[in-house]
């Protein structure tokens, strides 16, 4: 066997980011946009208007089964969750279906924990890692609700769609999981859907967001926003 280069993971938005002039960095073997223009400009855009970020490397797990809630509760000391509600990155999509979002690379450990718990308790659940199969686009900024209202029929008002809520909906004629994940007081939503549709959804959001002055932002700006 010939020894190959170290495998690097590319997000479905890699070519899009290249076209937009991004410089890249690596995180857990994912190649991700670091900066598009300047971190300062990107931070300002996110805080004052609207920004899009590629967060595909975030770990994503689907947990299915009638005992899924029980396994999750015993594994993570999680209280009961209503449908669409979330806590600590765990979201209930159906009675028997949960979605877990983790920081990049953490999904493997979570999957192992759940599998171990279910095996020990002889509860049948299916834990499927879908990180590679789902693009994740983060919409950040004061105008994020306005932008999403142009492409999705859901009501994004915080009173109806509070932070840590996940809803599956049609967005620009595609099926997406939309999670409200504010950054402090800054409105933010994660749009998670089929990776092959990622570039399409990104382009639609950029086009719809043009009137708000939307810009793409990289990891450096994202980290700074989270620190703030």
């Amino acid at each position, binding site marked *: 066997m010939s020894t190959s280069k170290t495998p690097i993971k590319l997000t479905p938005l890699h070519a899009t980011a290249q076209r937009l002039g991004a410089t890249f960095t690596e995180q857990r073997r994912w190649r991700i946009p670091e900066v598009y223009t300047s971190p300062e400009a990107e931070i300002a855009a996110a805080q004052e208007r609207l920004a899009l970020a590629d967060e595909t490397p975030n770990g994503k797990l689907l947990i299915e*089964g009638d005992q899924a809630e029980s396994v999750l509760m015993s594994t993570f000391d999680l209280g009961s969750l209503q449908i669409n509600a979330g806590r600590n990155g765990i979201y209930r999509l159906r009675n028997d279906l949960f979605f877990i979002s983790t920081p990049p690379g953490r999904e493997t450990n979570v999957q192992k924990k759940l599998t171990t718990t279910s095996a020990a308790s002889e509860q049948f659940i299916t834990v499927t890692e879908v990180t*590679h199969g789902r693009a994740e686009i983060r919409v950040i900024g004061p105008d994020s609700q306005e932008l999403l209202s142009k492409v999705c029929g859901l009501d994004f008002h915080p009173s*109806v769609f509070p932070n840590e809520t996940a809803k599956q909906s049609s967005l620009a004629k595609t099926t997406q999981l939309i999670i409200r994940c504010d950054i402090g007081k800054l409105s933010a939503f994660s749009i998670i859907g089929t990776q*092959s549709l990622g*570039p399409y959804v990104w382009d639609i959001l950029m086009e719809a967001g043009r009137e708000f002055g939307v810009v793409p932002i990289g990891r450096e700006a994202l980290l700074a926003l989270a620190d703030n």
Partner: protein
Amino acid sequence: MRTEQDTLTIMPNRLQAKQGEVIDRSTTIRFTFDGREYSAHPGDTVASALTAAGVKVLSRSFKYHRPRGLLCCAGHCPNCLVQIGDEPNVRACTRPVEAGMEVQAQNVWPSLKRDLLSLTELGSRFMPVGFYYKTFIRPQKLWPLYEHTLRHAAGLGEAHIDTPPGEFDKQYLHTDVVVAGGGPAGISAALTAAEAGAQVLLFDENPTLGGHLRFTIPLESPSSTEVSKDSPELLEAVNQQPNITVFTDTSVLGWYQDNWLCAVKGTRLLKIRTKSMVVATGAYEMPLIFDNNDLPGVMLGGAVQRLVHLFGVLPGKQVVIVTANEDGWDLAADLHSLGVNVAAIVDEREPNACASPYRDGLVNAGVPVFYRHIILEAIGSSAVRGVMIARLDEHSKISRVTTQSLQCDLIVTSIGWTPATELAYMAGGKSEYNSDRAEILPVSTPPGIYVVGRAAGIHVVDSQITEAQQAGSNAAAFAGFGEFDEAAAQSPGVIEPRRTSDRVCVPGNKKRFVCYCEDVTDQDVETAIAEGYDSIELLKRYSTISMGPCQGAMCSMNTIHLCARANGSTVQETGTTTARPPITPVTLGALAGQNMEPVQITPIHQWHLDHSADMMVAGLWLRPNHYGNPVAEALCVRNRVGLIDVSPLGKLQLTGPGVPELLERIYINQWRNLRAGRVRYGVMCNDEGVVLNDGVCAHLRDDTWYMTTTSTGATTVFEWLQWWLQSGWGEGVHLTDLTDNYSAFNVAGPQSRAVLEKLTDRNLANKAFPYMRIRSARIAGVLCRLLRIGFTGELSYEVHCPSGYAVHVWEALMDAGREFGIAPFGVEAQRILRLEKGHIIVGQDTDAMSDPLSANMAWAVKLDKPDFLGKPSLMRIFAEGPKQLLVGFKMVEPDVVPAEGLQIVVPEMDGQLEIIGWVTSSRFSPTLEEVIGLCWLPTEIASQNGTSFSIRMDGHIAEARVHHGAFYDPDGERLRM
């Protein structure tokens, strides 16, 4: 520098500046109308600027090409429709003028001034109402000529085919209360609802809020003097209220189930979900029907007031006001106070019926007043030069002997109102004719729907505000904010004086238009009713009244009156037509919105583009059709090794002990006996035994299975499985769509093993990893699923890798294969290769009638299984025998490739050709150097190998012969090497 005097010279109808106007007189801009340059001020509409310049004729009518001028000036009637650039059917009275704008008259030839198409009026007796149902139908072969001529002569503007697409979009809004209409009533309702805590969306079709207060003086109620003309207190209160979001220049188009509203603001379509709605959409001023009532210079009272107060434009020098209410007198006083020559007031009422506080002042000022008089005719050819009036006798009949003419250049009619209740009607509200008021007024609405202001027949401003505040309070309460105002519910309502005349039509001997949009006269209405179209809904459809750009705003009420009279019934008995969205015309672009056509691409998409791939659409997917030479690509696979991106293949994971039982029911073949690590080809049928999909399914381990589907069938199969899972089959089975999780590449060709061996430690020898097996393997350092299967008929491996690593793995395979002459191949080469093997493509070689017995897959059907989808149908077909078979064929002539879909025919006794089958696939096989294909044939022909048959080509018949079995490597040795 242009002086104000200069401007007045080029805009002779412009009044001196005054408070409340919306134009900026400090700047003058230029635009053209029909090639001639005109001046305007920012804030002007196209129509106000042209009227200021003295232009009276703005358009030609739809059918007779009669000159038409401003009528309503409110965006309701069709009289000012123009073409601006490549945008047709623009209402000049509402479109703001812009510097350099090129405005054209539409539906004229050769020009607006001398439109030869107006000669059609000479033949009007040959074109009565509904003529298109009765004439121009014989001889039938001339219909294309008739149609071309009629379409050219009639119609509106032109949509240029080469116009670049505009930018449109949509927005979804959610709120507690919607207020449609931003006049005093709408504003008051919105403020009250917002103060109760409700989120309110306030819509108005005008550029600013204020409604009629912007251009009329609320003269009738002493207390209304508290409301200033520009209603600054109300507007300021709206601005200060954070719970109100205002949408101006926005038309609410319709109400739909569950308080779902649709509105349009410019190029944006708004889809609104609300809990309650206040309809404050005002009222339409009714035109009067009399001889030449469409002559430019005949206008509605509100139109003149808009021009005067908003734009400082007076559309005439000598004004005759025709009225039947105090609104006409208010208008006369208004104009007189501005120094306008009011040549006469013609009031059909008795003097003692007039309660206007301005009467004495006007009379004392010498304004001639003709009580108990009615207008007979507007005099003039292309513009008003005078008016003919006559006295009404004691029976309210016209006394022709009293006819007299008056000189004037502007006739203003103010004879009544039609409440704009379409939204309430769509929401389920009921209206009744109030004979005292001569208006159809709303009498009930569903819970959560409220009608206020002029839409409710309330014209006095103070009353409008009071009632609207109660409605706003209740709308908020309905949405969960505050308490219901019980007093409002028990209120007897406001007593309003009669403002509307029920005369509507003055007989005469010239054309009198009921419908300005479609050129329908009162005589047309009578004719239609005489022909039997005597119900209001039939009359509408036959005459097309209310189906034009005004959507009934100008003609609906008058038509009901005419219909009632002709039938000898009452207005209440006649009823109204059904109000349907859109209330006002909307562009198709706004309905379409932003271009949203989802496209799926694989992770290798950019690589394909960088390597000159010719991309094709397959479902939502973009796939490489070929990289320049599909024949060479196919030969590369046969002789060396090729690599194809098959990522769009559907990939489903099934887990749980119930999976085998589910598969037994879903597929037509057997699954219980498939051991872990093995792969099997499977065919799915629907309940009718029709082939639904096919693919391979692998038993990974224990309770985990991995199913693949066709590229375009992944979603269908996923939903199909979900359906049966939720129906109780495969209890406890978990289904996950992994189509996008794994990218898939097929390494195919005699050297494929050698290529892979360079990238993995896994033993790929035939014995260790035989045909139809699945293994996990690290390929170029990435853990992949490896399936040894072959659609192409060669030794091949399908590599399924996590999509994030797809580019890495693909490039590693290309690098490793370089020494073996590897080349990428596309869908076209794959289709050649699979055809050489005789493999079918579900959806191309099969259709919605194809069962597996007929489609040459009888070997897969296991009728001895207890049950599976389609079994009863297949048992019947098995018993009866298939009538048609999908079978291979070879063309006799080596260079003739029949197009897919061509018919297979046999000659009948009479020399005609009978269709007996069709070609589903055909290609030139570079390996066999023959033309081969698949086709459907009657069983008796298909079952005989070598039987010849005829394919109807373009202009000739080509001969082909039935071929049984695979064309290439029929024993499948190359797959198993």
